[in-house]
């Protein structure tokens, strides 16, 4: 025999149960939405990830038929006698101030060792100091060096290399212009329309990219890096270089 109060409390219990069920449904719905959102976000990230990887691979790819400058071996410009007892590997960027400092203090010593037939120099170009301010000067300079060695040979390259370091533009500056590069190339002994055309069209752009990549594969993470018969040169002074070359020649 239900009284008025017991009917009311039954109704209250029913209402409470309904509210609890509604809350549970809402929680389940929220969980479902979170899960769905997570799956969608995960798929989007995955798609973007794959797309970006493909785009970047395309951007860094170099053509297998890219122009390779004459008088180079792979990405190395060789200067000096092939019968020289000591090999010196130099990794330099034409925009790198420390390279300019190294060339200023030890460049002439190295030149004498090359001239004496003691050293064969292997120049590994690197171009990693490109900025929009210098209009990709690192790349343009190394491309110009490639044009010079291709048309003027190793001795023209040697002069051009010395000229560019002696006249290195400030690191935060605007870089040398293509016209200035052509002028230095002519001064170094590489003349003619082929040189000018190669400099202005960035003919050896892919070669420059490959050379830079190769330097990184060689484990070089800074410039200048110098190896004397494979031994990394710690003392970069002229005396340090001569001593290392003497040791290598004696060994």
């Amino acid at each position: 025999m239900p009284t008025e109060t017991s009917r009311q409390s039954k109704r209250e219990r029913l209402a409470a149960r309904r509210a609890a069920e509604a809350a549970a449904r809402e929680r389940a719905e929220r969980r479902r939405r979170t899960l769905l959102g997570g799956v969608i976000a995960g798929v989007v990230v995955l798609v973007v990830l794959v797309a970006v990887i493909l785009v970047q691979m395309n951007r860094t790819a170099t053509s297998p038929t890219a122009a390779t400058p004459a008088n180079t071996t792979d990405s190395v410009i060789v200067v000096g006698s092939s019968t020289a007892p000591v090999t010196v590997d130099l990794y330099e960027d034409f925009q790198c101030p420390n390279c300019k400092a190294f060339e200023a203090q030890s460049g002439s010593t190295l030149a004498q060792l090359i001239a004496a037939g003691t050293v064969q120099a292997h120049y590994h170009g690197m171009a990693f100091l490109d900025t929009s301010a210098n209009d990709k000067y690192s790349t343009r300079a190394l491309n110009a060096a490639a044009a010079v060695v291709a048309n003027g040979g190793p001795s023209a390259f040697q002069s051009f290399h010395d000229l560019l370091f002696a006249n290195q533009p400030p690191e935060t500056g605007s870089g040398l212009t293509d016209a200035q590069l052509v002028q230095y190339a002519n001064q170094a002994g590489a003349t003619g329309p082929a040189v000018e055309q190669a400099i202005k069209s960035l003919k050896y752009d892919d070669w420059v990219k490959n050379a830079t990549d190769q330097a990184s594969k060689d484990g070089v993470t800074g410039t200048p890096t110098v190896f004397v018969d494979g031994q990394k040169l710690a003392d970069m002074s002229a005396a340090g270089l001569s001593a290392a070359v003497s040791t290598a020649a004696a060994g």
Partner: protein
Amino acid sequence: MREDPSRPGDLIVDEGPGQIPPGALVVAPSAITADSRPLVRIAAEHRGVRWRTVSPWLATAGRLVLGAVFVVAGALKVPDPAAAVRAVRAYQLLPEPLVATVAFGMPVIEIAIGLALVVGVFVRTAAIASAVLLVVFIAAVSSAWARGLQIDCGCFGNGGQVAAGQTAYPAEIIRDVALLLVALALARWPRSRLALGRPAHHLEEYSRAY
């Protein structure tokens, strides 16, 4: 079990919605019944009320700092993919076929994590992912340091090149450890204000639940 407090600092055992006078201590009923030393629990709960107000804002600050760092770090690596490859290769940890994929994919992951944190969606997942990445970064930088490599961490772009004697390993590791602490704190306490994925009413529900 509701007392009518007349003075600030009086004790209320909150058993549901109702007017709570300012300055009253609010404790959960369980704090009284489940503990043999209720007064200790009451004091702790009182501190907890203030903490629950501050901590979501701290979490918001942590989200924004960590998220911004990840977005910036990722975005700076996108424009020069060749430099990104050199930076990864400079650690000499990965086999060559993996280097490019990691170099190109890492910025996407970093930006995704960073955006999730900044916007405030999947905060706990993003915080855990960032913590994992930071542990990897710390391990990689430490190993480069231990092996005597002369590299820049490449954390914010750059190709890993550094002039001799210009390495900054201790500073890089300290920065990453600080970020790792933020990431771990966010993974533990992901509830925050100004988050897209956790509307504010959830927070209020959360505090009311006590």
